[in-house]
């Protein structure tokens, strides 16, 4: 339970932190600190169990069918890491409270920071490897948002993107590795995998697993050649760097290496890859750190170097090296976090982190300087500080690592050289910031920061001192239990955590590193300390450029592929779609169509043939005229619709005929309203209409159209001339009256058998209407339509006066007649609605008729006149309709029946007699309301566009441009 709480608290805190006001810095910090400290306390209370060597496990089923569970597992190593994450997290929170400026939106910061803490704890506590990968990627993501916290800065965005790309790509590799591990071990639990060590090493996948795990770890821990993202990630706020790039995020990689150490280490592959990557990072990081200009840049490269040291130790295949690695993880976290904090304080108080501009700050901020000096000394490995101890252990290990002679000489030599650079950059870091004299004016007058900002740094520095002087008492037990839990077989190596081991080789190496480091520093200072000049040596291995080149190449390749394989032109896309539909249909039906024309020729009704002569002519006419004669084409399409409707009526489908006719009317009005906003087009406006290309395209389209039409005709004919097969229609016909209670089977299907479908459909209708409303609110008509409109040309033209009893204008007679139409439309619509269940009609038709009545008022009387007399609120109709339909459906629950079942109530009333009331009528009423609302909303929204042109053009243009800019 405690474990769940430890994992859950940060995430809950993250949710909570996001809810505060943007300037609630104190509340945010209190909340975040409380979360971090509570987690630390909860973990701390588990220390007795950890000291006893127990492993705590809890798990709940996650996806049992795949053998996955959500499990947490806490052993000594995980405990040590979790403590580090929470304690340093708490310190960073305190520090961040004073670091963040009041202008920064802190809820976002603390929310992300807590989410990151939770993800990191998830990585550390996961008992299941798949789950570990999930949290691993979550840390990548949360670190991405943290690095990009100041997203108005291009460098922050670029750095965050690069960090995410690199670490998430590594995470994908890790997932592949984990899948292989689980495949071999037979389970994804960490314990399963640890138990299957022998099988994994013997397996043919072993080299792949090693490589993939290492890709994951190296990208995360910024190891060569994937180190390049870390310096770029320094664009993050300094508290983020102090947390992510010292104690947590980058440590996840080495954490994983240590976790997998018993399973994967001990082979030559491991030794070769891990050691070379570690060595390269150690040396190159230290070397590059010496030439950085930015304080945080020095620390970033130094981090790469120190993580390289840890990686190198983990690659050495010796338990003693593992102890040193774990020890250095702790030490590095403490001194590096405090150094980052110092860099942040300097930045905060002086306004710059540029080593070239800084100097002599010791007098202005002695406490900060002292803290930074101690921490930097720990980083350089000065005796009596924690860095010294782990570095000594490291030096000792390098001497005994290899078997071949050259390794035994080269490794200590390289380690010493790296140590020299480490001393050199630490010395420079301190000297250039705190001593000497600033070359010029600083952006701000430096002074000591508030005590609370110093406290976190001071705490960490105190830890450095205590561990450095009294290692056996302070860190000894923790190190012991952490290492013991990694080494599953429990064979602990012998080591001693003393400050003084006598005059031995590691001490000589340390001494050499110091003398050499100081010499390098003095030499470089005399040269005026070149910056970024010597790093060209580094450029040969410049991962940053490789990253950029890879990215550009990939994007180009993808663009090229997209250009070849796809088209941005709608016409091409649609032509391809039509072509493939025809092709697929041809493949599917070839040989299955028995066509016999002769037998059916006799039954042709001349009237029907004439009807379709008209229909076909209308369709073809519309097809030919739609470009230059829109109104004519629209009328012809309307005719085609009427013919369709008559056909429905002809073939025993009165409901369809009714619906089609009313939809036709409304659609035509809609399109007529839309015509106003189309550009004027004449044949001579298009000079390139008769180019060969255009002709070829028209030929292609004509061919496609004719083939498609022929295909449909053949298909329809083939179906029509074959007898119908068995279907569910018998069931529906037999049950429509007894169980659906209606005589109109189509209506019964709509409101009862397929009521849920209809419910979905009317919801879609409502959504479409609201979408249209919203779209038209933002829409601004094309400028030339505005200027050529008649109202614009004639400013003297009077607006219709709403107070007139009848609107003035040309349509006086229709206006009077139109007013009579509304009550009639209302009666007809209710008539259709009520009789719908037993005879042709229903909610759809009724609603459309009513809406037509409304829109007729708008058409003949004008929007202003109508709206001064009656306000239709379509949104209430829509909402009411949906509620009504849903309510009718929910009524069934009271009768313990499923949603939308028909409920019948037959009360006997005096005088009237027996009454048949059914919930489907209520449902149909909902449909009716909704259709009325939807249709009027659409039409009114369109009609209102004409009103807008009365606005002053200047105001209008300004609004348009503002909207466009947004």
């Amino acid at each position, binding site marked *: 339970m405690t474990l769940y709480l430890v994992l859950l608290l940060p995430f809950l805190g993250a949710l909570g932190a996001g809810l505060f006001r943007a300037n609630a810095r104190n509340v945010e910090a209190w909340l975040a600190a409380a979360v971090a400290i509570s987690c630390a306390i909860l973990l701390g209370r588990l220390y007795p169990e950890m000291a006893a060597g127990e492993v705590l496990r809890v798990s709940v089923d996650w996806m049992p069918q795949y053998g996955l569970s959500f499990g947490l597992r806490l052993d000594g190593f995980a405990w040590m890491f979790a403590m580090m994450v929470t304690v340093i997290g708490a310190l960073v929170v305190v520090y961040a409270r004073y670091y963040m400026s009041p202008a920064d939106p802190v809820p976002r910061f603390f929310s992300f920071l807590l989410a990151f803490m939770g993800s990191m704890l998830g990585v550390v506590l996961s008992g299941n490897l798949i789950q570990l990968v999930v949290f691993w990627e979550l840390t990548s993501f949360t670190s991405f948002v943290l690095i990009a916290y100041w997203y108005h800065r291009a460098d922050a965005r670029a750095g965050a993107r690069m960090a995410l790309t690199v670490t998430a790509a590594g995470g994908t590799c890790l997932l592949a590795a984990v899948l292989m591990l689980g495949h071999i071990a037979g389970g994804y639990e960490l314990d399963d995998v640890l138990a299957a060590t022998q099988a994994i090493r013997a397996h043919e996948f072993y080299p792949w697993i090693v490589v993939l795990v290492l890709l994951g770890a190296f990208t995360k821990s910024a190891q060569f050649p994937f180190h390049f993202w870390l310096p770029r990630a320094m664009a993050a706020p300094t508290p983020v760097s102090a947390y992510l790039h010292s104690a947590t995020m980058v440590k996840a990689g080495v954490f994983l290496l240590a976790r997998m150490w018993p399973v994967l280490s001990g082979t030559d592959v491991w030794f070769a890859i891990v050691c070379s990557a570690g060595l390269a990072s150690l040396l190159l990081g230290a070397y590059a750190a010496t030439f950085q200009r930015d304080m945080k840049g020095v620390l970033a490269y130094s981090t790469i170097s120190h993580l390289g040291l840890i990686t190198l130790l983990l690659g050495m295949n010796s338990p003693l090296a593992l102890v040193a690695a774990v020890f250095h993880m702790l030490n590095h976290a403490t001194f590096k976090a405090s150094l980052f904090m110092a860099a942040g304080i300097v930045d905060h108080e002086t306004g710059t982190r540029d080593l070239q501009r800084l100097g002599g700050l010791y007098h202005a901020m002695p406490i900060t300087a002292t803290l930074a000096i101690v921490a930097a000394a720990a980083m350089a490995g000065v005796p009596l500080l924690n860095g010294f101890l782990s570095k000594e252990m490291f030096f000792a290990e390098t001497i005994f690592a290899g078997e071949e002679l050259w390794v035994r000489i080269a490794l200590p030599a390289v380690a010493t050289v790296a140590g020299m650079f480490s001393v050199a950059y630490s010395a420079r870091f301190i000297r250039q910031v705190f001593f000497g004299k600033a070359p010029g004016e600083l952006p701000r007058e430096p002074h000591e920061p508030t005590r609370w900002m110093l406290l976190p740094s001071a705490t960490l520095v105190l830890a450095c001192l205590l561990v450095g002087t009294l290692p056996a008492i302070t860190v000894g037990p923790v190190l012991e239990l952490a290492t013991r839990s990694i080494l599953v077989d429990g064979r602990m190596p012998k080591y001693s955590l003393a400050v003084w081991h006598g005059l031995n080789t590691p001490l000589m190496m340390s001494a050499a590193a110091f003398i050499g480091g100081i010499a390098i520093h003095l030499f470089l200072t005399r040269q005026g300390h070149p910056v970024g000049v010597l790093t060209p040596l580094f450029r040969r291995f410049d991962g940053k450029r490789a990253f950029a080149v890879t990215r550009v190449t990939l994007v180009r390749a993808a663009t090229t592929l997209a250009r070849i394989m796809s088209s*941005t*032109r*709608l*016409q091409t896309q649609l032509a391809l779609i039509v072509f493939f539909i025809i092709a697929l249909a041809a493949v599917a039906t070839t040989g299955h169509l028995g066509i016999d*024309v002769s037998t059916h020729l006799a*039954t042709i009704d001349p009237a029907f043939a004439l009807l379709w002569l008209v229909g*076909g002519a209308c*369709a*073809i006419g*519309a*097809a030919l005229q*739609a470009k230059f004669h829109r109104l004519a084409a*629209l009328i012809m*399409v309307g005719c*085609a*619709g009427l013919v*369709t409707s008559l056909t*429905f009526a002809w073939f*025993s*489908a009165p409901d*369809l005929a009714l*619906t089609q006719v009313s939809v036709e009317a409304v659609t035509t009005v809609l*399109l007529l309203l839309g015509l106003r*906003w189309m*550009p004027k087009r004449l044949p001579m406006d298009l000079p390139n209409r008769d*180019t060969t*290309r*255009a002709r070829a395209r028209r030929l292609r*389209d004509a061919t*496609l159209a004719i083939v*498609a039409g*022929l295909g*449909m*005709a053949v298909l*329809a*004919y083939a*179906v*029509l001339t074959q*007898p119908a097969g068995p*279907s569910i*229609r018998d069931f529906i*016909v037999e049950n*429509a009256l007894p169980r659906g209670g209606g*005589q109109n*089977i*189509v209506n019964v*299907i709509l409101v009862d058998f397929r009521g849920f479908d209809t419910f979905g459909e009317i919801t879609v*209708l409502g959504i479409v*209407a609201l979408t249209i409303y919203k*779209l038209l609110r933002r*829409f*601004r*008509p*094309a400028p030339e339509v505005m200027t050529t409109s008649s109202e614009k040309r004639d400013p003297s033209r009077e607006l219709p006066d709403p107070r007139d009893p009848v609107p003035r204008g040309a349509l006086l007679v229709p206006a009077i007649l139109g007013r009579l139409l509304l009550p009639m439309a209302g009666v007809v619509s209710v008539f259709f609605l009520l009789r719908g269940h037993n005879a042709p009609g229903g909610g*759809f038709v009724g609603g459309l008729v009513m809406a037509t009545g409304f829109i007729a008022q708008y058409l003949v009387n004008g929007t202003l006149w109508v709206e001064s007399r009656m306000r239709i609120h379509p949104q209430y109709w829509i909402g009411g309709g949906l509620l009504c339909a849903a309510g009718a459906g929910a009524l069934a629950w009271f009768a313990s029946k499923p949603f939308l079942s028909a409920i019948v109530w037959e009360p006997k009333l005096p005088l009237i007699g027996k009454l048949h009331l059914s919930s489907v009528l209520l449902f149909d009423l909902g449909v009716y309301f909704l*259709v009325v609302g*939807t249709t009027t909303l659409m039409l009114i*929204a*369109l009609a209102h*566009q004409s009103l807008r042109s009365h606005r002053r053009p200047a105001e209008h243009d300004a609004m348009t441009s503002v909207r466009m800019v947004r």
Partner: protein
Amino acid sequence: MELIYSLAVGIFCACGVWLVLRPRTFQVILGLALLSYATNLFIFAMGRLTLDRPPLIDPNVVPDPSLFDDPIPQALVLTAIVIGFATTALFLVMLIAARGFTGTDHVDGVEKGD
């Protein structure tokens, strides 16, 4: 009858496809209307063609399914007509809005000749 019906579906479909492949938004919207007529007629045809037998039950007679036109395609087409109306309306508004934003009624939002 079946022959004419099939030809009707074919003609509507051909005109619809032709218009849908045209470069102007208004042509496309009319094309979609024609295509939806064709499709609705085609779906309706799945119930075969029957004369004078609408799916309305006389409550005094036990219903015989073979005496009615198939109501299922009818119900499906009814739904399709209404949804078709909604999409036509939405498309019309998109068309108007796109015209306002891009200054052209070309389907790609850019003038590219015919």
